[in-house]
């Protein structure tokens, strides 16, 4: 243990010299705080919220409710912003939400080709692949090939509808409810709903896939 003096627990300060990017971010934060434009604890609060409280589990609970409650699903498809507020999930970058239901005939998937728009309040912050040039360039022009890379093979009978979220609206895909889930509780069902299935690049897990997870 003693051989690596510089190694500290990740919760403590790191005493290695900062990388260029770290130094720049720290300098920017220090200057903004000195000028009274930002507070350190506002930055802390955002990090804590996305590491602990806001993530795909929010969206998963919305989907599970839609699976068990047809009236809620109808409200969600008509006015998703109002429907998610019933569950307390209104929030930043979900101010204007549209829910899209995947069926055997229609498969929705979501992208932002110009930046990385994503429903933060429902799904947390987007994964790196969602924000990167390969997905952003290809999702609109070759969605079937992209879905195949995610392990989803869709036949010609299924129409692909890609939503390029280029303005103020955010989108949530409601994946199909897997077979063999009739007896499951809403909470158990939420455990089957993956982040990728709510972006539209995956399916919800089957009960056996969820057990293996």
């Amino acid at each position: 243990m003693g051989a690596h003096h510089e190694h500290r627990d990740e919760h403590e300060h790191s005493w290695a010299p900062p990388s260029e990017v770290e130094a720049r971010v720290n300098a920017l934060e220090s200057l903004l705080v000195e000028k009274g434009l930002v507070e350190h604890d506002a930055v802390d609060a955002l990090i804590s919220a996305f590491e602990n409280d806001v993530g795909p589990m929010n969206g998963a609970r919305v989907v599970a409710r839609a699976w068990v409650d047809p009236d809620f699903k109808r409200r969600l498809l008509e006015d998703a912003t109002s429907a998610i507020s019933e569950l307390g999930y209104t929030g930043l970058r979900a101010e204007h939400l549209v829910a899209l239901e995947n069926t055997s005939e229609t498969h929705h998937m979501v992208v932002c080709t110009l930046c990385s728009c994503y429903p933060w309040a429902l799904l947390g912050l987007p994964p790196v692949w969602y924000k990167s040039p390969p997905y952003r360039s290809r999702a609109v022009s070759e969605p079937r090939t992209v879905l195949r890379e995610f392990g989803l093979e869709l036949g010609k009978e299924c129409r692909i509808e890609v939503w390029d979220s280029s303005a103020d609206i955010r989108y949530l895909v409601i994946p199909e409810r897997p077979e063999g889930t009739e007896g499951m509780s809403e909470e158990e069902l939420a455990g089957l709903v993956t982040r990728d299935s709510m972006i539209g690049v995956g399916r919800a897990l089957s009960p056996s896939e969820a057990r293996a997870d």
Partner: protein
Amino acid sequence: MNGPHDLGGKHGLGPINPETEEPVFHHPWEGRMYGLAVAAMTGGVLIVDEQRHAVERMPYSEYYGSSYYERWLFALEKLFDEKGIISREELERKVAEQKSAECEAHYPAPANPSALATKVMRVLREGASNSLETDQAPEFRPGDKVITKNLHPKTHLRLPSYAKSKVGVVERHYGAFGHPGARAHGRGNEPAHLYSVRFEAGELWGPDAEDPRDFVYLDLFESYLKPAEEKGARKRHGCPPRA
């Protein structure tokens, strides 16, 4: 602007390579960068449209060689310099003073939050809508056939290149929102009607579409659209020339 960000339909950018068990932030500085930008926006120091437009102005070689939060860093440095908040010289002096990274991996929620932290948490919970009221009636209705304009301004534009001069159908009218072209360039909130417009893959990609019957939807502002068929065009052709 026709910048490096306008990626839809580009070739040669490689496979997608999703990570398994991806952390929210890969490095502590990414969390600081994210929080700093959102806190600054919440405090009114900058707005998201300005940030997007600053990212768009990144040199191509840097854009494609950078991670998401490195692009945010570029944008904030540029914007604070342009706004006269932090000059390049002031920033470089401060960067040189950084002796250690001083970055923790995780942060607890503040116990006695500052006014800005309180506001940030409220915005996170309640959102920050940019929807606006307007007396102007929408020009289009669901079902209308539209054609996107052939626009190439050097300013902020939320009409991707792959969807310029293309025929689509208005799917929904979402109401009016602050026009991003005005917001990104310091003109504040100009209400503009926003529509979901549906395009057939065959219209966008021609013979190279995977399946011409697939759809792509875009959210487009009224100023990006015109009617696909000039209303009353036939009638006008039939008018006798003026005497």
